[in-house]
């Protein structure tokens, strides 16, 4: 009897230890669910929004519609730029809907909150929308991937090019929250390391509509470069009003630290011409990007922003990793993502232990109305790719970073 009990216990223990991996193999609950958590109606909805959902669906379609014989489902929600709303949605998605991966997550505050929550629940996040370097440093997590760009990589290209082009003295107009501050700090570091100086800064509240006051302050500082450490509507208004006050005409240069294609489209080439910025995707860069750009345009009526392209690429690579791992188990897929080459429209990136996807970035310049061919790309012939910034130059090294997981 005693023997029997013992062997039963052994068998049970064995069974348990076997049951783990057995359950893990294959696709849990018969479907791979990917959640696109984005801004559907607020200031960043032109950057991600419905376009991101379209991009995710295109990725599923291009992948073949199924993975390991199981269907793939895209669901989407609006986080309204609020960390609490984003967290609530993510919690519901993971607990109730068994979502396997969450992507986009524009806005750094939402990005950090959702990445933390998802990792606690063993769910992969592939953040394409948020910029803060905190995502892969002090707030890095085991399952959190920062896919597309960060506030370290953005100024490397732009600020370097501008300082080398003679813009030695800088003045910052900064969005007064975490993202703006981190962008300004990182840019200032690059400027100083190249022998430039920072003449001053002004913290403008997020959502400022009239930047003229700040622009006049920047103008009277005499700085050669007025740098905008902000994004979206803030950047657009600032550049437009700088033009209105004749600031560029009087010899100062404007530098947008985070500019999206839709911002350029919104400003128009007359106002935006000559503006340099750093991006990870432009539709007209190579055959792969053009192919996706055209297909996206056919579905959505606009060319994709780098965020939307990032969502497409993130979903595609996630599905490849699921296929290679033979399961949607988060540990196995995360391990696979860390091993595989991350194909990004013809470029190759790799995902480090801290979750950062290291890939090439591009310094671009807005074309003048003369240089732009209105017949090319349905009126979206807006940018000129000036220079490639190799991934290892663009991003912080692991040694510079502060992610405890990578130490």
């Amino acid at each position, binding site marked *: 009897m005693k023997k029997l009990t013992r062997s039963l216990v052994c068998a049970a223990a064995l069974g348990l230890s076997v049951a783990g991996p057995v359950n893990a193999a294959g696709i849990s609950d018969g479907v791979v669910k990917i959640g696109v958590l984005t801004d559907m109606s607020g200031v960043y909805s032109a950057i991600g929004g419905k376009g991101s959902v379209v991009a995710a669906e295109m990725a599923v379609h291009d992948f073949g519609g199924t993975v390991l014989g199981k269907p793939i489902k895209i669901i989407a929600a609006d986080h309204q730029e609020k960390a609490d709303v984003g967290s609530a949605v993510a919690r519901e998605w993971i607990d109730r809907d068994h979502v396997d991966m969450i992507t986009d997550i524009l806005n750094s505050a939402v990005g950090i909150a959702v990445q933390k929550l998802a990792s606690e629940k063993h769910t992969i996040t592939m953040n394409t929308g948020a910029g803060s370097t905190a995502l892969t440093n002090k707030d890095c997590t085991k399952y959190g991937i920062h896919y597309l760009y960060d506030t370290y990589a953005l100024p490397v290209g732009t600020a370097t090019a501008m300082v080398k082009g003679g813009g030695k003295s800088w003045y910052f107009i900064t969005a007064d929250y975490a993202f703006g501050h981190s962008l300004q700090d990182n840019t200032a570091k690059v400027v100083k390391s190249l022998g430039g100086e920072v003449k001053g800064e*002004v913290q403008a509240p997020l959502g400022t509509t*009239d930047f003229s*006051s*700040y622009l006049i302050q920047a103008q009277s500082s005499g700085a050669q470069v007025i740098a905008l450490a902000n994004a979206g509507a803030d950047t657009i208004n600032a550049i*437009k*009003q700088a033009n209105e006050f004749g600031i560029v005409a009087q010899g100062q240069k404007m530098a947008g630290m985070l500019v999206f294609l839709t911002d350029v489209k919104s400003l128009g080439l007359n106002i935006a011409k000559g503006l340099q910025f750093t991006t990870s995707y432009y539709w007209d860069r190579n055959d792969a990007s053009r192919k996706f750009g055209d297909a996206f345009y056919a579905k959505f009526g606009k060319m994709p922003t780098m965020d939307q392209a990032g969502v497409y690429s993130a979903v595609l690579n996630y599905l490849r990793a699921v296929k290679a791992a033979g399961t949607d188990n988060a540990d196995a897929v995360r391990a696979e993502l860390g091993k595989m080459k991350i194909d990004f429209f013809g470029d190759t990136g790799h995902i480090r232990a801290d979750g950062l996807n290291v890939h090439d970035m591009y310094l671009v310049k807005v074309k003048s109305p003369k240089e732009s061919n209105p017949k090319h790309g349905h009126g979206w012939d807006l940018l000129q790719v000036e220079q490639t910034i190799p991934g290892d130059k663009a991003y912080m090294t692991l040694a510079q970073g502060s992610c405890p997981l990578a130490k």
Partner: protein
Amino acid sequence: MGLPLNAVLAQAMLGLNQGAFYALLSLGLAVIFGLLNIINFAHGAFYMLGAFVALIGLTQFGGWIGEPELQINFWAALVLAPLIVGLLGVLIERTMLQRLYKFDHLYGLLLTFGVALVLQGYFTNYYNVNGTPYPGIPASLKGIVNLGFMYFPKYRLFAIAASLVVCFLTWYVIERTKIGAYLRAGTENPNLVQAFGINVPLMITLTYGFGVALAALAGVLAAPIYSVGPLMGANVIITVFAVVVIGGMGSIMGSIVTGLALGMIEGITKVVYPPAANTVIFFVMVIVLLVRPAGLFGREQ
């Protein structure tokens, strides 16, 4: 503070620019509240609509009717947009608001808030939320002028002047003419005024339409300065409400003077302590409400 005089003057000038918009917008709100007792939450949406009518007229309308060459220019929009949006206001008053006069303020507020959400949602669906620039500044208003202490865009000077003229005309009509007297009397005692043979309901409808038209006019004037976007009204309306509260709900002159003054205060704050620029008006509101609960120019009821 040791700020150079030129810098202070420059910021005051920009503050005046902002203040002129606050004045024009809060004036419309004050007219509607003072004469109809409606808290018009849709005011920001009508402001946005005014800007969109100008933008659509310039860039899209011709295409819609099959005449791509046709452009409704800025001057025409300055007249047409307030008319069109004002008519929409009349329609809303006739079909919806009119039914709510006998209820509490809250119902009117909720209805107009709903209208604002619908309009915003509609435009968000079809236009870039980040805004589209209005490319139609008339040639005569392009360029910058040297004011001695700063370079200032000609167009902004025009916008300031136009807002001030409209504000004071409105004040004059309501406070100093016979029509204004009828209006004021009609809100005090509608039955009595009606007994004198004056069509009070029509007068109220037209007043609402006029208040809405003022918002649309502000929208057209703002279009070339800011980007035309679905959220432009939502961004400004809360501040404008604060202006009206500070000025005293319903006071016409109060809203004009407070609008201008608060624009200046905000302008100066942008130099002295920029992070507070968005909130300084609300600080002022808190202080004013503590000291004078009816607002600076309001009458206690």
